[in-house]
């Protein structure tokens, strides 16, 4: 029996980093094959090799039993291999159709045939129920739909083997189940899917086979039926993983953040917040949950001075900070883990050391007058790397050479190590592995114990419920419910997220 795709003994070193060190992968036809492993285990590297972006140092690849050399993504396309990257590669201001046909434009007499292209995009969209409008502008779409544009791109190039690198990391639970429906349709259509995720419940739900990678090696290859979440976690991490968090009793202190009847601007038509009021005390985690696009962005930006308030007040430690600049707010002890690490949290081309300084550059310890104190900065970065166990080639390595999870850890470390008064943590565990989630949750709880006030905004309901002392559900820019997490049932929260909740204050 031959496989849709088989990789044997793949090795890929980046200097001293053994990203792939003798990896095997066997993808059966018309199945979903999950690849799991810790941040930096080498998953994306393997996928980039299968998609022709990197060349392996050694190893063999077979497509339908035939040995192949995948010299470039073009070759991959010809072999029927398509990939949706961990970070999207869409052109925001262009339409869905324009994005889909980029590089493979259907032409008649030298002109792009948009009518034909749109019709084809619509056809694919209908066939798999993707509900995409070919003329919509990509940047105006929610993340879940943007991802479908990526999927159409792959289908448009007639891929039979589809690689999805952490497709669910940025999705809401509802979007994830839609994606799973799409994946099932693709498989029913005879296509084979490689699926990377850090969420083991997703693996158990969608995968047929599973390959576990650790430190660049395959440490397990099993069928779904033979696997349990616990077992997978143990294989990935090399030890047992705690799935539950213990939260010590903390008596909340003074009010750190007080938001009073706040209404924000809307930026390029997104959902603003309207008449939002809440407060957070020292030693308290305040969780905000909602379907993406219900004002979370506006809240995040308003509190950090990135977006103007049109009404209401924001107070930090009793001082009015409404209208202050981001730099002033940061200087008062506000730290910020942003929702989108590649777009706002990091400068991908900058070395690690410059990225570690981001947001701290005005602090006097990192400066000698107008000059940057490199020595202090390097000491600081080394501390971040050590405290948060960041895997990085060197201080001079650009941020894009870090694996996704390690990029996230770098931001976390940068924002948490200096003891802020208020920590704004938005999707803090997006795209990080289970051991790191455990570590990040621990770090948040410890910060809480030390008296940091934490505003946690997350799409992960489990995360919100297990960490928060109080929660708020947002719907359509307003708070639909606020209170002790224990005072709501999951069903009630779900209803409030959908806009059908009762008003509880």
């Amino acid at each position, binding site marked *: 029996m031959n496989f849709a795709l088989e990789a044997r003994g793949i090795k890929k070193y980046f200097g001293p980093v053994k990203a792939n060190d003798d990896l095997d992968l066997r993808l059966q036809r018309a199945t979903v094959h999950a690849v799991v492993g810790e941040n930096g285990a080498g998953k994306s590297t393997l996928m980039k090799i299968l998609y022709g972006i990197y060349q392996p140092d050694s190893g063999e690849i077979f497509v339908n039993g035939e040995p192949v050399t995948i010299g470039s993504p073009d070759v991959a396309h010809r072999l029927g291999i398509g990939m949706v990257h961990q970070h999207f590669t869409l052109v925001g201001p262009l339409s869905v159709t324009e994005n889909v046909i980029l590089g493979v434009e259907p032409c008649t007499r030298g002109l792009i045939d948009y009518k034909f292209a749109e019709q084809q995009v619509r056809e694919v969209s209908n066939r798999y129920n993707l509900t995409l409008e070919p003329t919509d502008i990509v940047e105006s779409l929610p993340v879940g739909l943007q991802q479908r544009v990526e999927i159409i791109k792959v289908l448009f190039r007639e891929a039979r083997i589809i690689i999805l690198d952490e497709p669910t990391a940025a999705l809401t639970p509802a979007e994830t189940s839609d994606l799973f429906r799409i994946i099932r349709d693709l498989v029913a259509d005879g296509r084979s899917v490689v699926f990377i995720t850090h969420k083991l419940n997703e693996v158990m739900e969608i995968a047929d086979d599973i390959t576990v990678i650790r430190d660049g090696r395959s440490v397990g290859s099993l069928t779904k039926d033979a696997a349990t979440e616990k077992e997978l976690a143990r294989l990935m991490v090399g030890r047992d993983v705690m799935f539950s968090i213990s939260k010590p009793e903390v008596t909340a202190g003074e009010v750190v953040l007080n938001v009073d009847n706040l209404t924000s601007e809307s930026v390029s038509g997104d959902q603003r917040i309207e008449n939002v009021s809440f407060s957070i005390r020292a030693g308290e985690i305040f969780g905000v949950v909602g379907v993406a696009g219900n004002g979370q962005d506006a809240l995040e930006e308003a509190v950090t001075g*990135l977006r103007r308030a049109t009404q209401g007040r924001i107070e930090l430690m009793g001082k009015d900070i409404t209208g202050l600049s981001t730099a*002033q707010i940061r200087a008062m002890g506000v730290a910020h883990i942003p929702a989108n690490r590649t777009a706002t*949290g*990091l*400068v991908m081309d900058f070395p690690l050391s410059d990225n570690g300084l981001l947001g701290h*550059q005005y602090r006097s310890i990192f400066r000698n007058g*107008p000059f*940057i104190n490199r020595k202090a900065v390097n000491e600081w970065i080394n501390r971040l790397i050590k405290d948060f166990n960041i895997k990085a080639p060197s201080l001079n390595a650009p941020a894009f050479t870090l694996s996704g999870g390690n990029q996230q850890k770098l931001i976390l470390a940068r924002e948490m190590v200096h003891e802020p008064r208020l920590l704004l943590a938005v999707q803090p565990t997006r795209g990080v592995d289970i051991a790191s989630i455990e570590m990040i949750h621990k770090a948040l709880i410890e910060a809480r114990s030390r008296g940091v006030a934490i505003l946690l905004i997350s799409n992960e309901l489990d995360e919100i419920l297990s960490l928060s002392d109080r929660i708020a559900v947002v719907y359509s820019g307003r708070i639909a419910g606020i209170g002790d997490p224990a005072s709501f049932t999951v069903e009630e929260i779900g209803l409030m997220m959908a806009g059908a909740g009762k008003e509880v204050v």
Partner: protein
Amino acid sequence: MKSGMKQDSAFRAMVAPLLSVVGAFLVGTVIIGLLGEDPLVAYAALINGALGDVQALANTLQKATPYIFGGLAVMIASKCGMFNIGVEGQMYVGAMAAAWAGFTLTYLGRGAHIIAALLIAGIAGGIWSFVPAILKVRFGVNEVIGTLMLNYIAYSLTGYLTVYVFKEPGVMPQTVKIADTAALSLLVPPSRLNTGFLISIALVAVTYVLVYRTLWGYNLRTTGANPAAARYSGVNVSFMRISALLVSGVLAGLMGAERSLGVYSRFISSFSPGYGFTSIAVSLLGRDNPFGILIAAIFFGILEAGGPAMSIATEVPRELLSILQAIIIIFVASGAYISKMLSDRRVSV
């Protein structure tokens, strides 16, 4: 290991510029061959004419000087993610302002006079780039358009001032001569190489420190590389854009001052063969690095200074060197793209 990696990337940064230069000379060889001349003889004459003796060398550096100022000016804007194609105009107003100070503020003593003239030139250049900066930040006018438009105003304005206000009697469209107290002294007369060259060298080091060692430079580079991240970290992106264009304009103004105070001793209408535009190529060839720009500027100086010698020794017209410059620019521009592709491929192999 760390230094190994650094060297490797420094090396890779130089590959594209070097290949462009070599490629351009190969094309030049073919052209010279087609003209029925011996390329080796022509190139030898070129090198000899540019570097053969002290006067030749001084002449080369004199020709390189505006490109050093100009390359740095382009670089500062580009580090902030902007394209200042108005260096030419900023240079013109700087040159006029310096000349004006040179023949007007004659009551100043020697040191003070030079410093005042340089200062005024810098301010004039700064004003000329401040206008498009404000247009960009306030009204969203693309800086490419804004800076370009102001070039035309600069030509016309300085031309008008020359012919109708400060004209020296005679046929030449030039202003009266500056006072001796405002002249930048010549380093190796009779060559017009002057202390302006030393100032440009100092500015190479100064801009390097400014961009890579200061808070302002960090914010500049962050704004250029990722404005959203800059905003997130507390940087006032509008302020950075304005100040970057301002610094860029000041450098361009000084570039003009060196010509007026050091080379012509007056302002000459339309004196520039496109210094400001060639500076864009210089900064490209120098990879937006101050030291790279210094090397690239001297290289362009060699081409310009050696050209006459080459066309005397052979039948090769000196225009060939303009062609070589143009080819280098094309190669570097495409080379930047190619080496980006290369480095995407083999990031850290």
